[in-house]
């Protein structure tokens, strides 16, 4: 279809689809009046059953842990896919990456950015670690913490220290970390099976009182593994995508 025709055909279809969708949405109970019962039941029983005061994390890592396992592996598969697509690219090029990156005009990083990024690396690491290990008590968890940990690595890149970036995050080790994170989650589930319990049952002691850092059994443990996996996956993805720019930065210094 040529673009003009396509635009009008689409607008007609989208108008119909939007009207249809809105028609269905008006059948919902109004905004602000959630009827339950799933959320209400979980709110009532979660703290008592899992000793975790962060109910969203309890849902993610205990009640619906199986979903979270699948989602972990989606991120794993995506990071693997990015590696497959872009490393292949690197391997078969006629000219080595360094030569090709010379053609690109990349503005040198300003000193202000470099300094601020370097200063922020430490606090970001600490914050990420805190988030990843406190899933059961506060609005945090493996995913959020993992992303912040990955951000710390990206700040190092922003600070222009490519060599440091490459030295402290060799891709082989990061790949392994990612796989350990994903596999660790699956393995925790299997350990439950080995004890005769259904897969992913929370079999670790729940701790003395709700909300303590060491409470909630497997929730904290799974959250930790998820944090490792997410951090590693994002570092892999970002470093693969930025490889050329990183090289050109190095050349220009």
């Amino acid at each position, binding site marked *: 279809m040529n673009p003009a025709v396509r635009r009008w055909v689409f607008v007609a279809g989208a108008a119909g689809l*939007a009207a249809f969708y809105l028609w269905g949405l008006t059948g919902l109970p109004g905004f602000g009046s959630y009827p339950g019962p*799933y*959320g209400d039941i979980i709110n009532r029983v979660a703290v008592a059953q899992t000793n975790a005061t962060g*109910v969203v994390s309890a849902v993610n890592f205990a009640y619906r842990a199986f979903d979270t396992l699948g989602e972990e592996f989606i991120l794993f*598969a995506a990071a693997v*896919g990015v590696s497959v697509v872009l490393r292949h690219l690197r391997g078969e090029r006629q000219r080595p990456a360094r030569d090709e990156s010379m053609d690109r005009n990349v503005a040198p990083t300003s000193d202000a950015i470099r300094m601020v990024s370097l200063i922020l690396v430490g606090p970001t690491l600490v914050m990420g670690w805190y988030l990843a290990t406190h899933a059961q008590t506060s609005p945090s968890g493996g995913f959020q913490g993992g992303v912040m940990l990955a951000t710390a690595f990206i700040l190092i890149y922003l600070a222009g220290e490519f060599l440091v970036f490459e030295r402290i995050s060799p891709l082989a080790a990061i790949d392994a970390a990612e796989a350990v994170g994903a596999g660790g989650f699956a393995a925790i589930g299997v350990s439950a099976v080995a004890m005769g319990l259904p897969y992913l049952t929370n079999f670790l002691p729940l701790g003395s009182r709700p909300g303590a850092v060491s409470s909630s059994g497997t929730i904290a443990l799974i959250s930790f593994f998820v944090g490792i996996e997410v951090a590693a996956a994002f570092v892999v993805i970002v470093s693969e*995508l930025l490889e050329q720019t990183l090289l050109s930065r190095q050349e220009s210094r």
Partner: protein
Amino acid sequence: MGVFPFVVVTWILAVGLYGIVTSRHLVHQIVCLIVVQSSTYVLLLGVGYRRGAAAPYFSDVSVHTPAVDPVVQALALTDVVVEAAVTALLLAFAVQAHKRFGTLDPQELVQFKG
């Protein structure tokens, strides 16, 4: 007021789809796909909201405080991760497409047709 957030959901979906369909740049198209998914976040979180209720974190309030639905928040979390994964993969494809076809215009990225 009861239905306004859902009107927003429909609008975001429609705008995202319009962006995909009329796009002339692959990265723009991928970002429009993110916009389409954002409509599902708004829908999920809007469906679980309860007026006057607190967040479902009970470390400093009693367990009997009325709270919003934690399940949709967990679903939205899962959603965000899925979207990040798919976007990362699509952007890698975009890098690849630029190498092979020399262009990022979806209308030019055609090797097979008919």
